[in-house]
């Protein structure tokens, strides 16, 4: 599987994503600096990693969404390449318009880092098929701005179209309708606040994240 991880200034889960992908697929992803304007040909997966791009200054993900690489990212997404935005990457995807809605400050106002039980709300998506009908996974969360909001029509449409992929069992941040992760209309772009790339090794607390990357691998 051919993959790429985009690196923005302030990204800090870029290496984590690369290590997870390499461990699961056996192939090293290309690390793409945000000042590039082209992505490699023939990609199966592009990851916008977690972190604090541009220090979360102005608005989380807002400055990164104006990076030189973003037009290429949009082109690949439109062509159907799988795209995963994790945490800050989810915020960036919302700011680019690839995903609807926005992520506000957590309802509890504090940064929250803990293992979070999630419901797999759509078990047939491009990102969850390998879980084979399993309904719950635990991924760590670590964010200050994970409170997902969108207008009611959008939320209804997301739910109606099976685009809510993950839901919180015990909503940690006030997200509308307990939404932890959503996809775009085509189903090839996933944004989620929890970190599947941090759940790939039992020694480090769990390996529930493996299925997410395997799903992409199997669809590739």
């Amino acid at each position: 599987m051919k993959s790429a991880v985009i690196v923005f200034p302030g990204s800090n889960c870029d290496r984590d994503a690369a290590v997870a992908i390499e461990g699961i697929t056996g192939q090293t992803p290309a690390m793409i600096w945000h000042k590039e304007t082209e992505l490699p040909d023939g990609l199966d997966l592009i990851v916008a990693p977690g972190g604090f791009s541009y220090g979360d200054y102005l608005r989380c993900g807002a400055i990164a969404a104006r990076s030189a690489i973003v037009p290429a990212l949009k082109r690949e997404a439109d062509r159907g390449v799988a795209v995963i935005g994790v945490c800050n990457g989810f915020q960036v995807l919302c700011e680019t318009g690839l995903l609807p809605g926005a992520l506000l400050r957590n309802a509890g106002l504090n940064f929250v880092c803990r293992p979070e039980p999630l419901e797999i709300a759509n078990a047939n998506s491009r990102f969850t098929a390998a879980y084979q009908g399993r309904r719950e996974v635990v991924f760590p969360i670590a964010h200050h701005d994970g409170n997902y909001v969108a207008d009611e029509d959008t939320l209804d449409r997301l739910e109606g179209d099976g685009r809510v992929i993950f839901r919180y069992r015990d909503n940690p941040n006030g997200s509308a309708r307990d939404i932890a992760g959503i996809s775009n209309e085509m189903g090839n772009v996933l944004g989620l606040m929890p970190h599947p790339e941090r759940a790939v090794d039992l020694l480090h607390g769990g390996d529930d994240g493996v299925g997410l990357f395997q799903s992409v691998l199997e669809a590739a």
Partner: protein
Amino acid sequence: MTDAAAPPRNSAAMTLEDAREHGLSEEEWGVVLDRLGRPPNLVELGVFSVMWSEHCSYKSSRRHLRKLPTTGPRVIQGPGENAGVVDIGPGPNGEPQACIFKMESHNHPSFIEPYQGAATGVGGILRDVFTMGARPVALINALRFGAPEHPKTRSLVAGVVAGIGGYGNCVGVPTVGGETNFHAGYNGNILVNAMAVGIADQDKIFYARGAEPGQSIVYVGAKTGRDGIHGATMASAEFSEGEDEKRPTVQVGDPFKEKLLIEACLELMATDAIAAIQDMGAAGLTSSSVEMADKGGIGVELDLDDVPQREENMTAYEMMLSESQERMLMILKPGREAEAKAIFEKWDLDAAVIGQTTDTGRLVLRHQGETVCDIPVAPLADDAPNYDRPWTVPPKPAAVRTEDIPEPEDYRQALLKLMASPDIASKRWIWEQYDRHVMGDTVDSSQSGTDAAIVRIHGTNKALAITSDCTPRYVAADPFEGGKQAVAEAYRNLSAIGATPIAATDNLNFGNPERPEIMGQFVRAIEGMAEACAALDLPIVSGNVSLYNETDGKAIPPTPVIGAVGLIEDVGKIARIGGAQEGDLLILVGETRGHLGQSLYLREILGREDGPPPPVDLERERMARSYALGMHALPSPIAVHDISDGGIAVSLAEMCLAAGVGAELFVNVSEAQSGLVAQAPDTGSLCAWLFGEDQARYLIAAKPEPDTLGLLSAATNRGWEQGYQIIGRFSGDALKIADKVDIPLADIRAAYEGWLPAYMAGKSA
């Protein structure tokens, strides 16, 4: 040695009065006059005052710090550089690697402005570590706050925790552990001690030394502003009422810029372009340039017009004393400027060549066409004051007799109260605000509750174990034994999980050293630490001294914090606190005498803070470790926890909570198993046995298998007292102790987890 150069033009000569305002004594002023052969101007006086401040010169502590053991087979660099460097063997590709670490205080700034004070404390200690070429891999924090009921405590906790998280989370280094105490002795002066640990290849370690004449001096990072001017001097004086006026001297952190600096510096360090490098920490541009000049035996000429500036009309004095954050100063090898520039441009960092090294041995500063400073470098370091301050031997506290200490009326209530007491209660509210997993190598963190944090060495099957420890009430009662105990507990925490303790850093927080009784605490605590470090093979490789922790003449409890690092050769074979399972034997390692002096039982249940702390027998610490390691060698996994605050009762409750299984003490374990039965207390007092804080002890959970029983039978007649004692068994979902205690785990958990969130929500004191 006098300096006959003509004074810089256009600058008024300073007087003794000016020197006093800069914190120099009359004697120190005399030395300045002697070395220069003339009075300094304002800029020069500023440079002398910060370099000779307590914070930069260690003038009260130097002669005593020498007592600490600082060498060992693994030590590559001991104290004197930005951080200590220790050999940790081969990395992922077989290349020799080093662990680089240090702990540093940011106490005064954090009390004045908790968020920025704590945040910049984290930023500063990270720079100390990556300046030496290490990628930071873990952060630890040792925090001391005032009494919960003090009106400022709640907001200080909230601000400090948010600041630590705000910086560490953004910069992308996991905050994996720490400790938090509350005591009225810190009401007017909290302690925020941050430790950073990094890993580097041994052939890519960078030092302040190494520059030669004729090389370019490059400034990179944030622009210089007026923030933090005289921070080092502030850290070298007592507080008084009206400390709010000092707020402008607290710096503001930018973790995003720090992240860029880390990546840019490590990228440049992978080349061969850097001759010497220093971060601009306390005393900023002054200290970084003087350090490199002094250690390299060279001179430095800076053109201050070229310093990137954030504010208009900054004077030379302001630029030299600014403590603006996220700035680095490096000296490049000849002809490497373009290479460095390209990397800084990639990371969008401001960088400028601001001067050259010379062979004059002088610090020469030019600003707006004038020479504003021209002084020899050597006296700034060599002639820094080195005081032998008078000190008095701390008085020994009267012993408390166990038979004079009443048993609790209700053991159940006593244990629940201890579990909900501020020093023991879960700190989840704090550590859930820290990203503990970023970088993907965290095996255990505060969340696991294991005795030390465990961080895998990236790409290998090895790991580092990290802990920070100090029991201030012990040090206050007996600085010598308390100093020993801080080291012994760190050693025990590393040993519990199966790590080999390799080295430590220290953060010595004390009051005003000009008072003989405070100096006595300092001297004796160091002597105790030195004895323990020597006996336990734990060299001190870096450290920080924070004195003048007083407000209105009231000193903090003496708090010498130890940050220790251990090495784990196979991360698959660690013992964790939470590994106990139904049916496991509960084994006590070490001798229980029931020492209640300075125990939490006395303080929390009886409201007394008297008696001597538990004595520390270093030989027994070594033996207890070897007994614990004997259990580690068993084929089945075990769980281990060291016994400290609250004694056996609290340590056992913590093990039960972590494992989610109850325990029963003094039951007949199994008649069928070699006749081994759990033994009842041998101290006469159940209370002293349960809550006594004797040192050199561990609790272990092990399978009742033939290997275990064989080991136990063979060991009972060996060495001092009993090596191992079976005291019960893990089972059920309650903690049962004779006929005194039968508490469902859920109730213990509610007490343990409940206190801090309720307190922070304003629901309890």
